[in-house]
């Protein structure tokens, strides 16, 4: 049954396609639940992906690459969080700056690190190995675990209530003794770390390469997913599967002649973006962002 094989192949591939989007979205759900918005996901993914390749390729240890990516993501999250939370900066502008910086810095660094322009493929040993029997990445299982843990923390634990309070009504949270600013900074750092992990998935797990446009808009699809998921990690899992499946399916279409004859190759590439727009436009009326997201919290008059 070649059709079943094809479907199986698409499903296995989808696990990779959904991971970067889901991880970045989970990070952003946590960040936005605490009241900070970070639209620099694309940039964080890109820079983390770069360093993941650099370290994994040098040490021939993919896990060191993964850890590096998480660390770099956390570091950029720290910078964004510090600007947003303590300096009361404009969070959207800061995020745009991160994306712009990343695009330039990564293109520059590829040349500095490897003396090539635009494109580098790490050695095969630098790639995250697959789990034997099922053929998926171990990071996929980790991603599912993170989703569940994040859901439990946000909804079943005291600390989750505190985090959500910071995003809904920071004044009230402050009054009952929650350290709003510390909570927001920590959430932004963890959000950055998860987005960094997403970068490692792209560069040393799934695609095993680094280019200056590696995330190809996935950071923004993750933002759309946050919206789609109504800031709930479990819906995020569901949504990421839809996005991941569509992305993989459109890649498969390129190999099928009857598709490429109907839709020329460059236009097949637009499918994930069009799908994102349609899916998000279809559900958004029913989702509700945390009330104080994106507004710097100031104690009294500043």
């Amino acid at each position: 049954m070649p059709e079943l094989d094809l479907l199986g192949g698409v499903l296995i591939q989808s696990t990779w396609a959904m991971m970067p989007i889901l991880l970045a979205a989970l990070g952003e759900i946590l960040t936005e639940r605490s009241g900070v918005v970070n639209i620099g996901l694309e940039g964080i993914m890109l820079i983390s992906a770069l360093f993941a390749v650099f370290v994994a390729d040098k040490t021939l240890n993919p896990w060191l690459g993964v850890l590096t990516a998480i660390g770099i993501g956390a570091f950029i999250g720290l910078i964004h969080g510090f600007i947003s939370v303590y300096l009361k900066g404009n969070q959207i502008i800061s995020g745009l700056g991160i994306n712009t910086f990343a695009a330039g810095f990564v293109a520059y660094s590829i040349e500095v690190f490897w003396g090539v322009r635009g494109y580098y493929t790490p050695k095969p040993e630098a790639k995250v190995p697959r789990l034997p029997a099922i053929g998926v990445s171990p990071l996929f299982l980790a991603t599912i675990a993170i989703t569940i843990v994040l859901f439990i923390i946000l909804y079943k634990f005291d600390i989750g209530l505190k985090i959500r309070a910071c995003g809904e009504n920071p004044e009230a949270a402050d009054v009952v003794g929650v350290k709003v600013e510390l909570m927001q900074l920590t959430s932004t750092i963890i959000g950055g770390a998860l987005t960094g992990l997403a970068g490692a998935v792209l560069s040393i797990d799934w695609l095993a390469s680094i280019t200056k446009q590696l995330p190809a808009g996935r950071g923004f699809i993750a933002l759309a997913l946050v919206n789609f998921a109504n800031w709930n990690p479990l819906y995020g899992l569901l949504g990421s599967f839809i996005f991941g499946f569509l992305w993989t399916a459109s890649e498969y279409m390129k190999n099928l002649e009857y598709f490429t004859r109907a839709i020329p190759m460059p236009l097949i590439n637009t499918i994930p973006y069009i799908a994102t727009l349609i899916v998000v436009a279809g559900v958004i009326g029913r989702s509700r962002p945390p009330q104080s997201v994106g507004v710097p919290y100031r104690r009294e008059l500043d």
Partner: protein
Amino acid sequence: MVNSRFTEYLVYIGNVALAILIGLALGALIIWLGGYDPVKAYTGLFETSFNPSDYYYFATTLSYATPVIFTGLTFAISSRAGIFNIGAEGQMYMGALGAVIVASMNLPSPLILPMALITGTLMGALWGLIAGLFRALRNVNEVVATIMLNWIAFWIIEYARNYGLGDPRRQEKTISMPVEGRLPLLVKNTELSMAFVIALIVAILVYIFMWRTKIGYYIRVLGAGVKTAKYAGIDPRIITLYVFIIGGALSGLGGALEICGRPPTYAITTAASNIAGFGFTGISVSLLGLNHPILIIPASVIIGGLLAGSRGMQIKAKVPLEMVMAVQGLIIIALSVPGFTFVYRRWRIKKALRGGGSA
């Protein structure tokens, strides 16, 4: 009042200058860490952008200022309405594509240039309108919508180059604008064309539009808050659509002017390489220009200089030219911090409080 307003302007200029300095300083650090010579790099950069002894370089700087004036205006108008239209990139692609379509049509020669500019403007406006509809009618985050549309526009122009609008002799670019459709150059043997003059005029028109017309006023009211706009009897959705249509039209015109006014190709090259990035660079320009149509002009010259000088930097110090984009990102991040303005306001409030106490 006048005096305090003047001080406010000085503080803003200080803010911008500080952000640029931070960007360049951190950029120097990255250049040094990359194993290059920062002094040599920046000397190369400025020698090929603001070199007083050779007008060629300054003309190149102004030629790069031209497209980013348009994309900067797109971002500025939306910012004034409290919206982040970061779709100038895709809107510019569509404008350039519009001009290329006209170039392919064998029109009578006096019609080519005006038709190219009009088609480009309309296609940019259409691309803006789509994002605006998602925002206004379905409440889709405009950052997400515009980035998706940027990617869609990118693949549409790649499609056009490969299927139908490609140059039959050179696969790496589209059909070129025929000679009759090209804008005259302002300075011989440079890339600086009349497009720069058009950009200046458009910036002034946008200023008049924003501060002297009803719609411009409504846009600024919307920027004061959606609730404020509703109390003033303004439908935020209609104004949002205006913001996106006008913004898209501006970037579309900018894209068409790149095709009609930039030697040597007068076409779109592979992967949009000759127009890619202007849209995002417009964000830096707008922020440096405090989202003000007139201040965007000097800001575009500063950023245009960075773009023009990046090649000189690469040739003279071997530093990859993308470094300039990283510097821009650092400048944007620095500008996101209230910095001086913040400190100054606090100081003024404290002074006022103290003054109130003693009086």
